[in-house]
């Protein structure tokens, strides 16, 4: 099956039926903000779509969910979802989400942001929220560059990537995000590409159901900059690349899942483990120490 046929089949399988009743996503999206700002064949829209699908499958009341984004192309997700949503400062979506979650533990709090936002300028917050095991889900759309500002090299850009601030190719070593997330304590770590719409939706569902700091990395085409400058073609051709180069390896040690510029891409669920969340730890610890003087905190 060609990638086009596969995509068509996938869309049909999702049973998306735009019809007289309006857009099938209109309960989920701020339709008065459409059209969005993303480029044609950008992967972020796919992630938003899959996220909506995940919430729908989970049967969550959208009033019980909050989305927090930082700055950048993916940072704009918060502005399009018809959910309590916060478009914060660059790199600080996770600490905002931490405050939100701890103040109202019943709220499902999801951070959707880009690689530059989450692991470069926001890297310190990422590692500490994972260490604390704050009960939030972080969905990182990794397009390997700072796209909003015009395609600068990022902490995730594969070595040798051509970008506007690495015109002779990137000579730095990029982050391997699943390895990073696991090493600092994430309870759930998965990576998929924008092509894997069912699998990324399932990963989001698992991550949202799992207590603790859960992390889903989605590799997404940036047709305007990353793909064009690095001669991957347009977004569709990049999906074709994902199709041909992705290897599903559940449980693969995360140390092995580095991404080279034209290497194989290891995808799958790498980590799924249990660890007390920050609030559970606080409540059980303080109960032990303070006895009847302490009433477990519920928000």
């Amino acid at each position, binding site marked *: 099956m060609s990638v086009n046929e596969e995509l068509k089949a996938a869309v049909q399988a999702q049973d998306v039926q735009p019809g007289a009743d309006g857009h099938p996503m209109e309960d989920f999206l*701020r339709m008065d903000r459409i059209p969005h700002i993303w480029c044609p064949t950008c992967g972020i829209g796919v992630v938003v779509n899959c996220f909506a699908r995940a919430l729908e499958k989970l049967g969550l009341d959208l009033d019980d969910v909050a989305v927090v984004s930082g700055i950048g192309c993916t940072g704009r997700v918060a502005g399009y979802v018809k959910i309590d949503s916060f*478009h914060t400062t660059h790199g600080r979506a*996770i600490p905002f989400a931490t405050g939100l979650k701890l103040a*109202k533990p019943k709220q499902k709090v999801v951070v959707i942001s880009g690689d530059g936002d989450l692991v470069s300028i926001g890297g310190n917050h990422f590692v500490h929220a994972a260490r604390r095991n704050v009960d939030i889900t972080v969905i990182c759309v990794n397009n390997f560059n700072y796209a909003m500002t015009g395609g600068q090299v990022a902490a995730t850009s594969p070595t040798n990537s051509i970008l506007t601030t690495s015109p002779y190719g990137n000579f730095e070593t990029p982050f391997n995000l699943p390895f990073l997330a696991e090493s600092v304590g994430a309870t759930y770590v998965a990576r998929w590409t924008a092509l894997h719409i069912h699998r990324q939706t399932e990963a989001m569902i698992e991550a949202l159901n799992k207590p603790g700091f859960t992390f889903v990395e989605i590799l997404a085409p940036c047709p305007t900059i990353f793909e064009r400058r690095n001669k991957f073609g347009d977004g569709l051709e990049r999906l074709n690349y994902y199709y041909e180069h992705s290897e599903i390896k559940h449980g693969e040690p995360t140390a092995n899942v580095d991404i080279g510029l034209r290497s194989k891409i290891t995808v799958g669920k790498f980590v799924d483990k249990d660890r007390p969340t920050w609030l559970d730890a606080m409540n059980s610890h303080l109960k032990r120490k*303070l006895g009847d003087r302490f009433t477990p905190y519920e928000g």
Partner: protein
Amino acid sequence: MKADPKGVLTGSHYLDGDHACCEGALAAGCRFVSGYPITPSTEVVERFSSRVPVVGGVFIQMEDELASSIALQGAVWAGKKAMTVTSGPGFSLMMEHIGLAAMTECPCVFVNVQRGGPSTGLPTQPAQADMMQARWGSHGDYEIIAMSPSSPQECFDFMIDAFNIAEKYRVPVMFMMDECVGHMIERVTIPEADDIEVTERNYTSLPPGEYLPFKPVENMVPEMCKVGDGHRIHVTGLTHDERGYPAMNHMAQEEQVGRIVRKIREQADDIVRYEEFEVDDAEVVVLSYGITHRVAVEAVQKARAGGLKVGMLRLIVVWPFPEKRIAQLAEQGKALVVAELNYGQVFFEVDRCARGKAPVVLAGHGGGTVHETDFIVSKIEEAARVGK
């Protein structure tokens, strides 16, 4: 509404300003603090971390001040009253999120127990050199409210006011202490909960679909909501419209950013707060705030004893500034002395408001300790000479 008795430690206590500040926050209903340790402010969060498990709420020590200054804003949108606490270097790191709080009209309190600067400066010694940073430190145009206590008792009392006015105007309030006030130990009387007025958050009663989070309702201030209420709001640091949607144009900039400036400037008369002593017959008025006020009191008494007609104006709310009152005093030909632990910050504001109508003399000090009384007296004498 009356204070929640759970947070009110009624009685007479022997507390330093930092501890009193924490008790004031608890009495005001603060149930979420995100902090990061920094001298000389740390005792505030130490006390909060010890008290809050019993009162009910959350303390989280974040990884840095960037995180602590935004975590509290997440907590506010989830319905808590919240604060963060820091000193100079941390305050510098918080600037971005003071701008976010101003832009998103997030009611919260930033405590700054000031120490000598710039940079690492004098971590264990006092200064009042962050006053302009409190007002203008984040990029772009905005207005905040800043208060300055002079004693542990005021750290308690004014913290309640700080939380209350934050709610009234949907604005971040800067609580500008200093190392001396933070670490001095005095009697602090905490009243009964029933005697403490607490301003409730002004939650909208409009149904989802009708509520607009950035549409002013009363006093140019929009109503609040919290996550999970069904309003499905969007909040952004981008320039936005009444719905909170990004609006990249000069009309939205004027409507919303103009309003967050105007809501403070045009209502400054209601927010400004100061005390005066013996100003009526005075030829020289000493203006000060925070710890310096207490030194200035002695200087004024000494100058009066020496036959000079000296009065005093003490700022409680520093920003917005009592422009009209300063202009009046200058019009009356009273010379002004500004005593502060910096090389001239509020001084320039006083000088601006005097508009050349009266001499304005700076009694500046780089910090590290408080002024010598006689130094302020010498500036009073200088002002009296220039005034004639």
